[in-house]
Structure formats: structure tokens, C-alpha cells
């Protein structure tokens, strides 16, 4: 029984029909926050991609000459770590790991979480109960504890980190997708699809999922940021990716002992981590603001 609501009151009048918002991606430049975030991410992606072409020391090469004075110098712009390895090179090569593992892990979590959430939201009933119950159990776990227990037991490797992220993040994603699905499930376009007897899979993936993309893009960026923090924490707790290949968290950890005399050893890796996380968080924030503006 509701009629159109003329709520042009406090907000600007509804967007003109002939100028509906273009896709989120094309509007991204409107958000300064998002652009700063994107800039930070692109900066690291570029460095990571170009790593083999850059005139850098190999990341694991130990420069014995630098052991005496590891501070930043013309030879090593960001100095060396206490094993004589070039920090800049290790940061850039380390970015390759972080930038592949974190998004990959988040993506894998989405591949698991989305179908679960869609099924729970669309089918409801027992399917929903089972999926939600399992999700609840995993989500009740204090997340860091779960990571520590998992990684300490199955061992630190890129694959295992991906597995751990999937296990811990998929339920959260499923919950979000379920919520978004529930919002839509009773909308008329779903009914219309049912009335032409579309299959459940079709409705879930073609009709429902695309409409979840706004919140999911935001969530994805946040999750990548959080995964980077997690990988950093695991490295810091000594559960990082196996040595000697550079891992940002491990670099911070290794540098902390020297913080009072050689602060650059943990300062630069920390800045790297913070900048990349900030990038994803800012992007997420910008995207969210933009999608709220619709």
C-alpha cells in the first residue's frame, strides 16, 4: 500500500532518471579517499610486478660488507637487515608474496563463502540452519586463536595460510551474502525468475549474486587488508612464511630486537605493511561511501 515517497526533503532531489549513477568503477575517481587507497595499492603492485626488472640485490643475498654498518646508504637505500640483506629488495620481493597470498586467500574465501551464503539465504530452512550453525561455531572462535592454532599445527606455508583464511573468513562472507540474499529473496525480480522456472543455481548466481557486489567489493578490500594484517601477525609471532624468502611480518619481527640501535630494520617493513593495509582500507572506505551515495 505504499506510494512513492516524496522525500526530497533534506537530501538533494532524487537522481535524475536520465543520469543514473554509472558503475562503481567509473565513479571511483569521485572519491579522493578511494583514489589515495588505490594509489597505494598500485604503487606496491607496480613495484612487485617490476621486481625482477629493477636493479636490486637479490632479496636473500647477504652483503657481508654491510654487516658492520647496516644503515641506509647509497648502496642500500633502505639499509640492510642484520643478516646483511637489502631491505628495499626484500620489501619489494616480499610485496609479491603479500600481494599474491592476501588477495588470493580472500578470493578463495569468497569462492567458498559466496555459494554457502547464497544457498543459506535462498533455500532457507534446514540448509540455512546447518550452514548458519557451522558458521556460528567458527565465527565464535576468537580469530587470532584460530589462526595460531591452525598455522601452528598445519605449518606455515602460503597454501596453509590460504586454507586458514578460507576457514576463518568464509563463514563471515557466507553470513554477509546470506543477509544480502535474504534482502532480495522476496523481491519481485526473483519471483519473476521463478515464474519462468529458472533453476536455483541460476537464480543464486545470476540474479542474486550480482546485486551483492557493492557491499562485497567493500568487504573484499577490507578482508584483503585484514589478511595482510594477519599474515603480518603470523610472521611476527614466528609463524610466517618459511625463510629465507622475505615476509614483511617476519622482517618487522626480526628488526624489533634492534629497534633501539637500528630502527630502520623494523621501521621500513612496518611502513610498508601499514601503507598497503591503509591502501585497501581507504579503497574499501571510498567504495562504501560511493555505494551509499546511490
Amino acid at each position, binding site marked *: 500500500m505504499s506510494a512513492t515517497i516524496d522525500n526530497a526533503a533534506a537530501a538533494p532531489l532524487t537522481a535524475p532518471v536520465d543520469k543514473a549513477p554509472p558503475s562503481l568503477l567509473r565513479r571511483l575517481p569521485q572519491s579522493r579517499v578511494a583514489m589515495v587507497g588505490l594509489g597505494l595499492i598500485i604503487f606496491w603492485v607496480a613495484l612487485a610486478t617490476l621486481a625482477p626488472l629493477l636493479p636490486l640485490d637479490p632479496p636473500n643475498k*647477504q652483503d657481508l660488507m654491510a654487516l658492520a654498518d647496516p644503515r641506509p646508504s647509497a648502496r642500500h637505500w633502505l639499509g640492510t637487515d642484520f643478516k646483511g640483506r637489502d631491505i628495499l629488495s626484500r620489501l619489494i620481493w616480499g610485496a609479491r608474496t603479500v600481494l599474491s597470498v592476501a588477495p588470493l586467500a580472500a578470493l578463495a574465501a569468497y569462492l567458498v563463502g559466496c555459494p554457502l551464503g547464497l544457498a543459506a539465504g535462498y533455500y532457507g530452512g534446514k540448509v540455512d540452519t546447518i550452514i548458519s550453525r557451522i558458521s556460528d561455531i567458527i565465527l565464535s572462535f576468537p580469530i587470532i586463536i584460530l589462526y595460531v592454532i591452525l598455522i601452528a599445527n598445519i*605449518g606455515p606455508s602460503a597454501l596453509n595460510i590460504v586454507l586458514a583464511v578460507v576457514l576463518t573468513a568464509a563463514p563471515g562472507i557466507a553470513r554477509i551474502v546470506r543477509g544480502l540474499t535474504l534482502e532480495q529473496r522476496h523481491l519481485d525480480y526473483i519471483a519473476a525468475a521463478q515464474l519462468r522456472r529458472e533453476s536455483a543455481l541460476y537464480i543464486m548466481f545470476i540474479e542474486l549474486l550480482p546485486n551483492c557486489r557493492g557491499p562485497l567489493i567493500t568487504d573484499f578490500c577490507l578482508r584483503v587488508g585484514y589478511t595482510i594484517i594477519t599474515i603480518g601477525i603470523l610472521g611476527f609471532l614466528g609463524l610466517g612464511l*618459511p*625463510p*629465507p624468502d622475505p615476509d614483511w611480518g617476519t622482517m618487522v619481527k626480526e628488526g624489533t*630486537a*634492534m*629497534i633501539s*640501535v*637500528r630502527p630502520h630494520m623494523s621501521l621500513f617493513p612496518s611502513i610498508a605493511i601499514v601503507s598497503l593495509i591503509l591502501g585497501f582500507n581507504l579503497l574499501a572506505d571510498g567504495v562504501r561511501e560511493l555505494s551509499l551515495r546511490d
Partner: protein
Amino acid sequence: MTDDRDNPHLKTLTKQLADGRMDRREFIRHACLVGISAASAYAMAGVPMATPAKAQGAKGGLLRIGTRVKEIKSPHTYSWGGYDSNVSRQVLEYLTFTDEKGVTQPYLFEKWTVSPDLKTWTFNVRKGVKWSNGQDFTADHVIWNLKRVLEPAVGSSMIGLMKGYMLDDVTVDGKASTKIWSDKAIEKVDDYTVRLNCKTPQVAVPEHLFHYPMAIMHPDSKGVFEVGSLGTGPFTLTEFELGKKAVLKARKDYWGGAVGIDTMEQIDVGDDASAAIAALASKQIHGLVFADPGQYDALKALPHLNFYDVPTAETGVIRMRCDQKPFDNPKVRKAMRMAIDPEVVLKVALRGLGVAAEHHHCSPAHPDYAQIPPMKRDVAGAKKLLAEAGFPNGVSSELIVPNDHAWFQSQAEACVEMWKEAGITVKLTPMPGAAYWDVWTKVPMGTTIWYHRPLAIMCLGLAYRTGVPWNESGYSNKDFDAILTEAEGTLDMTKRKELVAKLETIMQEDGPLVQPVFRSTFTFMDKRVKGFSMHPTNYMFAWKLSVDA
């Protein structure tokens, strides 16, 4: 002194000293081992005896040491001397005392004599030692402790150490076990005399008695150490909180004399290297039990600290399983060694705090060390050997690195870089220390801590003799075993060194290990702490210390 002159071993030893077959240091060490008093030994060697760090007199005050406060309940089954025994060490004492130079001296045993065949050891219990409840310390107490640690059900690692000369293998319910080889093995001569009758000759018995699980407990304790436990030592444990701190209060009636401080607190600073540094920097603690090479630079920069170090035979052996490909081929094993420059490892992993080793586990700190030509790094040679072994394209393997010794990883990383140049690809896999001990004899390549042991042949015998429990590499070489057995029965130092040289050569050519460095153990203490010296096994003796206000 008269007793010393009667010592049956004196003649051999003095002769060797006179012939120059044994240096003065070795003479003193051996003389002490066989029961000659340190004073006599030093005198005979013509070395002025360094005044042992004496207690500074009762000045009072509080000493706070950063460590990990681990479980301490069962001293006889301690698994590592570094942390757990340093709490009980202040309360429970040992029968002998091995100083930082490796010289074993009397302690609760006032003196001892040994038969010429090195099988019968007679120990005199020091009189006047009183338990903290006032009771006298007697031979019965000693025997109770000895028997207890050799009881398989107790699970003390003393079994491993004394098995060769005190225990027989037996089968109980189809399971391998051990028992004391003879009813008379541990003999009470009188209230203040104990005799050990060994199955085989053994020169190192007094050193073994200083092994950390051999803490002397009161029989009433039933082997449990806790707050208020009886001990003969200078302190009593008054407070203990796992993972937090242990508080020890000085006894007024300690047999050894005045105790320098009133209270010792051992504070748990965690595993994080930076937390310990922060605690020292903010003067929350006076010093650390020991420091890691990774902390060295930072601590050196703190002006209120003194640096203490001592060279040791402690090392991290990268051992290869000889029954697994590709290490079943001795050429591959040798190539692994040839690709390494120990000096690089020393610099990178130990900040130079140690000595370069020669891949044979015998240290210049060992008296029976023999100087042989060091292995030079030879990348081309290593490649050639690999090609000969059938690996022209190099080999690859996985190296397990237990993460409870931070410098192991630095060592491994340095090695990986050098191996890479020789076409050897090694993947590092860190593992919690606890987990490593379940696989340490199984993985193809692993890094194992070998603590300081007084003799080179002890190390070789424990780790590389065919079939012994701690032979982690599965190494089996008949020649090696034969020479080793011969060396163990040879008291003549020159001869023994010749044998050891052969063993060292076999290790370098055929052995299962890459062993680039021996480390010095070191620590930092507040300059106000007086009387401290670094012990190679990180033992602390708080009663000798004092703290300036």
C-alpha cells in the same frame, strides 16, 4: 695434598705434561677429574690459580634476571639446563662443579679417587653441609638421588649419559628398558663415602655428576621441587609463578658462606627478543641468563651494561640422514660441506661471537681437539663431486630448522645462499623446537643443537657411533667406530689426539654433518652486578653475585 700425591693417575698425567703431550690446561682438567684438587693441579701445572670468584660478602639487595620461568617441578627430568635448572640450581646443589674453563672441582663431594682402570670411583661427601631444615647431608642422600635418576620410570636424561657404564639393556614386558648393571654399582662405604663401580672404564664421571638433572634433592621431596623445598644450596624458593617469576631468598646458614644478595628474582621476559631488550633498557632487570646474537648489537648500545662471554663447544649441526637420498652418497655430503664458508656463517649468524668450525664437531675448546687442515670453500669442487655422484644438475632438499635457537635460522639462511652457488637448492622449514625432537632422527636434513660437552670424543660418541640412541643421522662407519673406541680407552693425550685427528678427517670426508661454527655463549649484565662470569652452559650461581646500590 698428600692424597693428591697418591693418586694413581698422577704419574701418567705429569709425564704427559712434562713430555709436552698435554698442555697445562688439559693437565689441570684431567687432574681434577681424577680427583686431584684444583689447587694441586694448578700448582703442578705451574699455573697460578685464578682466585675463584668468591662471594662478595653479604651486601644484601635484590637481583633480577630475565629468563623464561618454566616448569621446575621435577629437577631429575629437566630437559634443558638453560632455564629450568637455574631456579632449582640456587636451592639444589650438585656433587661436583665444572667451571667455565671446563675444570671439574669438588662441591658436595669434597674429593674423590679413581682406580687405575677408571672403573671404581670413591667419593667423599663433604661434611658440615646442612639441608635447609638443619639436617646433615650424608651419603644416603647421594645414593637416593643416584638411584632415582637411573630408574627408567623416572625418565631422567641421566640414563642416556650414564647408560654406558652404569646400566644394562633389559626387556620389560617386551619393551626395551634399562636397569642398573649390578647391585653393587652404587655402594655406600660409610655415612660420608659413596663408591660407584662402573661396568666399563669412564673418565668423565665427575663431569656427569654436574649434568643439570643431577641436582641433589632431599629424599623426602620424592623428587618434587617446589616452593619451600629442602635444599643444601644458598637460597630457598619462596615464590613461583609459572611464566611470570620465581623469587629466591638467601639462607643465613649456607655452608658455603655469606650470600651476596638477599633476594634473587627470575623474571619471565618471553621469547620475543625485543621484549628482553626493552626490559634491560628500562632497567626492569639487571641482566639476562643468556643473550642471542640477534640481540647483541642492541644490547651493546646500552651503556649501563657489561658484556660477558665464554667460548664453548655449543653448535648447531646441520646433519644429513645417511640412509636417505641424496645423502646416502658420501660425495654429496662432502659437497654440501665444500660449498660452505664457515667464516661467513660466523659473521652473519653469530656476529663473530664464536669460532669457525671445520665440519667435524671437535672444538678448539675441547682438550682432545686435533688441529687438521681446515676445509676450504670450493664451489667448483663441490659441483664436481655432485656431478661424480650423479647429480650434474645439483641436488635439492629440505632443511628443518627448530625455531628455539634464533641463530640457527641465520646459519641456515647463510648456508642456503652459499649452497645455491653450488647448484644445491635447500628449502628451509622452521619448526617449533618441541616438534623437532619428535622427528630429529628422521628428517633428511635437520639442525640439531649440541650443547657444550667437555670432550670431543664425547660428542663424537654420542652422535656418530653406529646405533647409539642419539645418532640422529644414522651414520655408520666401522672404521670410525673402531678408532673412536680406541680413543675413548686412550688416556695418553698425544695418542688420543692422533686418533681424534683421524676421526676428524673421516668426518670431513665422509661424515653426515655440515657444521660451520661453534658459538660463544654470552650475556649482558648491569654494571652494578658484581662477581658474574659467563658459564658455557648458561648456569647461574647467584650466591657469588652482589648488586651495587
